[in-house]
């Protein structure tokens, strides 16, 4: 039962007005879900000084603390003193009973520790990637080859980062684990990530699995079903156009498909924006488009339009070349009633059940992706998959599950799984 006098704070490492990454969108979804459940909630987000103009005129229940990116220590995740003081000051005015941290990046492990020392509140931290485990952008892929990494040890980590000693990596782990010991609850959107976090050093008894809610479900423009029978099969990619998302794999696969018999009925559409890609990658991308009339790039898109854009596809492809966690694009695909074709690793295969809600292909293998795409061009199979697709989690449902986890009255079993 929700106590109307309690105030909860959701702390995010960015505001969705500044950045639309999965973590900040999920944090905002929780905030809105709590409010929809009648809870008094405040959303507190970090914001770079340079982006202040994007977050003017926020509602009273949304607060910001500002930072300079150059002052944050990316190795031990220590925020500068000013960040800590701003956060403490904002929370001091709120006097929260519960604080939900989403991500510690840019907030700082030290800020979380300071909040734990200062306030008598129930604290939880939701993980959205593997940053506590892996210094390589939290992706758990090696440098420079970007091979999947299965185990982080101080000795292995120095192979990727020779500028740091194994002693430093050991200290990093000790410091993070010791600091996070002050958190009451940990939440992971996927079992895969939860198991990694447990193996790394956090107690399994504190970890729960709760899927992220999909924001603005009801406000999005719905898409219509594609008419059958089909003359053409459309496969859509939605997300940042970068190699880490497997775009290179998709482009190569498209090239192979163009040479296959019957391939004229296969169309691949890419949606998304380029952010900080190398000139070499952009050149490859443009060359692939030029050489394949069945491959098209439709440019960036607004999240409000994603369901409509997905409705014009038959399948959504998520060809990521790293483990992922719970990509929001999969939830969006389910909301649009589209099966998903995804790489066969990590959080991806957890969110997409093979032959039930979509298909898997061998990670990084354009030939296997091409074979999978060809096999997916089956109306009976497609309709069966659509019938199995789960309903996406609403922000209200997400908030309810969070609240059940952190309530003192409930005794969640080890690793709660979401229920439909």
């Amino acid at each position: 039962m929700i106590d109307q006098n309690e105030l909860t704070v959701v702390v995010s490492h960015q505001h969705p007005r500044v950045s639309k990454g999965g973590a900040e969108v999920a944090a905002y979804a929780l905030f809105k879900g709590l409010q929809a459940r009648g809870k008094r909630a405040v959303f507190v987000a970090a914001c770079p000084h340079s982006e202040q103009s994007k977050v003017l005129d926020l509602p009273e229940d949304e607060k910001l603390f500002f930072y300079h990116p150059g002052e944050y220590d990316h190795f031990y995740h220590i925020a500068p003193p000013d960040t800590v003081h701003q956060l403490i000051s904002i929370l001091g005015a709120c006097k929260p009973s519960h604080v939900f941290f989403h991500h510690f990046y840019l907030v700082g492990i030290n800020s979380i520790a300071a909040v734990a020392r200062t306030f008598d509140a129930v604290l939880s931290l939701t993980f959205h990637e593997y940053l506590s485990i892996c210094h390589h952008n939290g992706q758990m892929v090696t440098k420079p080859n970007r091979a999947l990494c299965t185990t982080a040890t101080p000795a292995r980590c120095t192979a990727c980062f020779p500028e740091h000693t194994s002693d430093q990596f050991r200290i990093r782990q000790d410091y993070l684990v010791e600091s996070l010991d002050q958190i009451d609850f940990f939440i992971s959107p996927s079992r895969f990530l939860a198991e990694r976090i447990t193996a790394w050093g956090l107690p399994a008894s504190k970890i729960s699995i709760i899927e992220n809610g999909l924001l603005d479900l009801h406000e999005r423009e719905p898409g219509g079903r594609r008419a059958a029978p089909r003359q053409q099969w459309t496969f859509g990619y939605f997300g940042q156009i970068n190699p880490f998302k497997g775009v290179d794999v998709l482009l190569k696969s498209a090239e192979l498909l163009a040479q296959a018999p019957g391939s004229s009925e296969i169309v691949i559409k890419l949606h998304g924006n380029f952010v900080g890609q190398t000139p070499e990658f952009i050149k490859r991308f443009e060359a692939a488009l030029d050489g394949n009339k069945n491959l098209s790039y439709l440019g960036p898109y607004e999240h409000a339009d994603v369901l409509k854009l997905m409705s014009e596809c038959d399948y959504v492809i998520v060809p990521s070349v790293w483990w992922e966690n719970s990509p929001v694009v999969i939830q969006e695909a389910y909301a649009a009633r589209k099966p998903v074709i995804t790489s066969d690793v990590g959080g991806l295969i957890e969110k997409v059940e093979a032959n039930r809600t979509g298909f898997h292909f061998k990670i990084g293998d354009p030939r296997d992706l091409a074979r999978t795409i060809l096999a997916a061009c089956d109306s009976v199979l497609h309709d069966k998959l659509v019938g199995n697709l789960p309903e996406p989690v609403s922000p209200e449902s997400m908030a309810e599950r969070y609240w059940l986890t952190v309530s003192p009255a409930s005794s969640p079993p080890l690793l709660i799984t979401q229920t439909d």
Partner: protein
Amino acid sequence: MDIKLQQTLLSAKAAAGDLASLAVHEDEANRQGFIEMAAVDASGNVWIVGWMNQDKTEAFPAVLVDRQKYPSSMCVIAEFTREDLPQGASGIIAVLTTDWRPSSESEAILYFGSKLLSHLRALRPLPVVKMTTVFELFDQVKGRSRSAFSEVANQLLMPHSEWMPTELSALGFPLSLDIDSVLVVPGFGCLTRGWILSPAKQIVSMRVKTGSSVLKCDESRLVFEGRPDLKAVNRHVSTDFSKAGFVSLFLGNVSSDAVHDLRLQIDFAGGITVTREISPLKVSLLGISAPVDSISRFYPSIQHEEIFASLAKSVRLFEKQRHSSLFEYKVSGKRKAIVVALPPDRSDALLVFESLTELAGDLPDDVGITVIASRSHDRGHIVSRFTNLGRSRATGLSLFFVDDPAYALFVLDKILPALSADVFSFVGAGVYLSRSGWKQLVENLSEDSRALAFFRVSNTRAQGGVQLERARSSCFKWNTVDFCRHAQTMSGYVGGHHQDNGMIKSSQLDPATTSVSGSYFRPHLQSSLALAINSAGA
């Protein structure tokens, strides 16, 4: 030097060894004069110029104190009237037999007398001059000097042979030579690598002049090596290229200040002497522009040579001397001090500051925190973090800057008195303490004991609690009086730490060892040569 004088000085120095155990105290009432400048000659004798109240006609024992005690002897070889001095005082030029080496940062006091009550104080900073300056001064006063040693002084201070560079083309015989590299080890000598193509004349001897010091070639360590690279550009020269290169050691008391004026002089058969200037670009100063391991490039097995003990002593002395600078940012002391040297890595330093920030608010009132940072650290981050510490604690926070916090122990005897701390715990650069480790350290400091105690850093998160082997001097607790007394005789070490830095012997007690939870930021990697230098004489 005159043999009689030399013997007298050595005898007096030996007597000074007994005096060195006496406690010394600088009392202005017992001050007998000042040392106004100093120089070091090629034989290692120290010459001082200044003034003195007392008449001293013979060599006498003395103890020179400059961060540690140096049993010495002194003989006034020139004594003369100066108009600027009080009645009864005389200007002096004196020679010291001592292991002390003057520098501009010296804080030297020369004690003498049967109870070491009388003293001469060196100016601060102390001008260190060339021997030619001392000679010129002597030349001015020798006519009116009252000292019985003036004739001896005249011989000692005569300027060296002409060292003007030779024009090789004017020699009348084919000769080409060059120096590839010189490594200067202050107080020890120069290691040199070069080549000589001399098809017509045989080499008899070599020497190097640096400032006013002349260093002779240690012929037992003169090594010849092949130079096939010279053959390609000297095809017209008919000589043995397999011995054209040489590695040599020129022993002598070379000062760190004199490295810019090096000259090589070679005597050839037939009485011909050739002098060559050595370009400063080819000269490295050990510890400053060349790491300690660069010694191995000249003599790969130098730790097995008989001169190694002398080399090690000079290297360690210089390490201590060159890490003696201290810059005070803020001082606010407490009776008990936690002194923390920051690690060199920026992220590591910020992590240590985070630990101190968490610690500061919960410390007992009589405990302060002192941070020792590097002048190479990002100053903005250090100062902002230090200021932030002040939010948790109004008093008892101090910050100092040094060249390298790894050598913080060498300036600790200056820091602790400034803090007015009675007891302290020291956490060296490179040490990481976990939250529980800091708690253990503070609890230990709160105990009444003032005896030396070591903290053994132990990674308790690792299975079984891994004890990490490092120098014990990297984390310890002691009282200020005993540490400062120890610091006067503490040897320098490459890397700043070696085992317990001699503290156990000084404390004369079996120190306790307590485990604290933590780790080290970097592995303690030391070359075999550095380890040998630190261990020499142990």
